[in-house]
């Protein structure tokens, strides 16, 4: 029998418990600001693997603007203001466009997509994202024939992100995808997790989720989407080009300088997590391998 997360403790019960505890232990201002999302439909792209606990997904984060420790973003991003929010669609498009958060939320029906999330550091989660295909956002503008790539930029405000200076990487964080990768049905614009809006540490108000690539490609808190002709610069590639290429597809055969990528630890399983074999394209090869048929994955890591 396959147990689902929803079989264990009813979602409402433990969320209420958490809310109660947060409210009781901290000041009322520190209570969770996430709100429930409605009208979510289940997606056939979801894995049947058991999702990692909400607690783990929202307290163990790489978000260098809010500190380099995994436990820092949940604390330091607590008062992060994500409203009002606008995202700009620009670059090689016939007519650039600005959208606010409300408009983005209404672009397409919300889907729950339970995806594997593989971090380049060698650990993985299973996350029930809520969102819609990124293509729904990209289709809001008409790209010119020159548009070959899409460049993304995170919000950056050093006043709110005081720890960012210690991270020693360039901000704002930038990422990029080839246009066909960006338009791929698996590429998600996530607006929530576990049926609620995204907590700040997970990239509120919306972020990319590209499940066949290492986690850092899935850029958080997007403010700019730019259609471009040339392969755009990406943050980790600029910091350490030997370790991080442009594509960053999950690939057990291509090592990172500090560790092998052959295996990963699925967190939240058992006491210490479970060591499993990493799959090419994080197990999404059936859907995405065709994007890379003429490409040497060892060279284009």
């Amino acid at each position, binding site marked *: 029998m396959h147990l689902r997360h929803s079989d264990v403790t009813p979602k409402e019960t433990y969320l209420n418990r958490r809310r109660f505890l947060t409210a009781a232990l901290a000041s009322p201002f520190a209570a969770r600001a996430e709100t429930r999302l409605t009208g979510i439909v289940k997606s056939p792209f979801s894995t049947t693997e058991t999702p*990692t606990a909400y607690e*783990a997904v929202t307290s163990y984060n790489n978000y260098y603007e809010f500190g380099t420790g995994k436990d820092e973003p949940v604390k330091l991003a607590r008062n992060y203001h994500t409203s009002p929010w606008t995202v700009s669609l620009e670059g090689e498009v016939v007519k650039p466009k600005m959208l606010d958060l409300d408009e983005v939320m209404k672009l397409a029906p919300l889907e729950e997509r339970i995806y594997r999330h593989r971090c380049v550091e060698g650990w993985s989660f299973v996350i029930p994202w809520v969102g819609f295909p990124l293509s729904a956002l990209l289709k809001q503008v008409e790209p010119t024939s020159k548009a070959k790539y899409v460049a993304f930029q995170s919000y950056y405000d050093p006043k709110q992100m005081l720890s960012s200076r210690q991270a020693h990487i360039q901000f704002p964080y930038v990422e990029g995808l080839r246009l066909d990768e960006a338009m791929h049905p698996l590429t998600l614009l996530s607006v929530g997790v576990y049926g609620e809006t995204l907590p700040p540490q997970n990239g509120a108000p919306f972020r990319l989720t590209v499940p066949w690539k290492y986690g850092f490609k899935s850029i958080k808190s997007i403010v700019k989407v730019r259609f471009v002709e040339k392969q755009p610069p990406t943050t980790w590639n600029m910091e350490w080009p030997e370790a991080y290429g442009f594509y960053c597809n999950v690939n057990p055969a291509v090592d990172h300088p500090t560790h092998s990528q052959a295996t990963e630890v699925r967190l939240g399983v058992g006491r210490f997590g479970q060591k499993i074999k990493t799959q090419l394209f994080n197990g999404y090869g059936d859907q995405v391998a065709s994007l890379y048929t003429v490409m040497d994955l060892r060279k284009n890591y």
Partner: protein
Amino acid sequence: MRKFWLSGWTKALVCLLCLVPFLNLSWRFYQNKLTANPIEFITHYTGDWTIRFLLITLAITPLRGILNQPQLIRFRRMLGLLAFFYACLHFTTWIGLDKQFDTREMWEDVIKRRFITAGMTGLLLMAPLAVTSTAGWVRRLGYRRWQLLHRLVYISALAGVIHYYWLVKSDIRLPAMYAGILAVQLLYRFGAGLISGRKSVPATRPLHPPADARG
């Protein structure tokens, strides 16, 4: 003050204090509070404390001179052994939890990844020092030779700091801080060595045999 340092109670207390990180780790394990990534947490935690104890051990000799408390030497061996203890925990975590006894994977790591090579070097250099830390070994080797051998601790600490520095992705604050402390200690020892080469400075010279040769 001298009496305080020489008391067995003080030594027991210091030892217990040094085991607090280990007890805390055990408590967190028991409570299942090892973060979302327990292996990573234990690895970093034990690694951090290894470097810290190495640096504390290396601080003993300079502190004896600066504070004029030669009795502090009584704690040096214990602190060094605690550093080795945390290093062994760190190493065991890597073998058992991280690599899960996969010898091929471990060997590949050691030869292919420079930060593992550095860490392994640091650990291997500590092992003979731990073995020869007894008064019996000081006698067997003769103090000069024993002292020379135990200078390896500086190389070991350096390897540990490099191990850490090569591991971090971008935020080098902690490894840089440890490197800074080690540099100051090395400079101090070097400077003290130069001075004592010309005139005797008893306060910075280790007692022989160790004051607690009885164990």
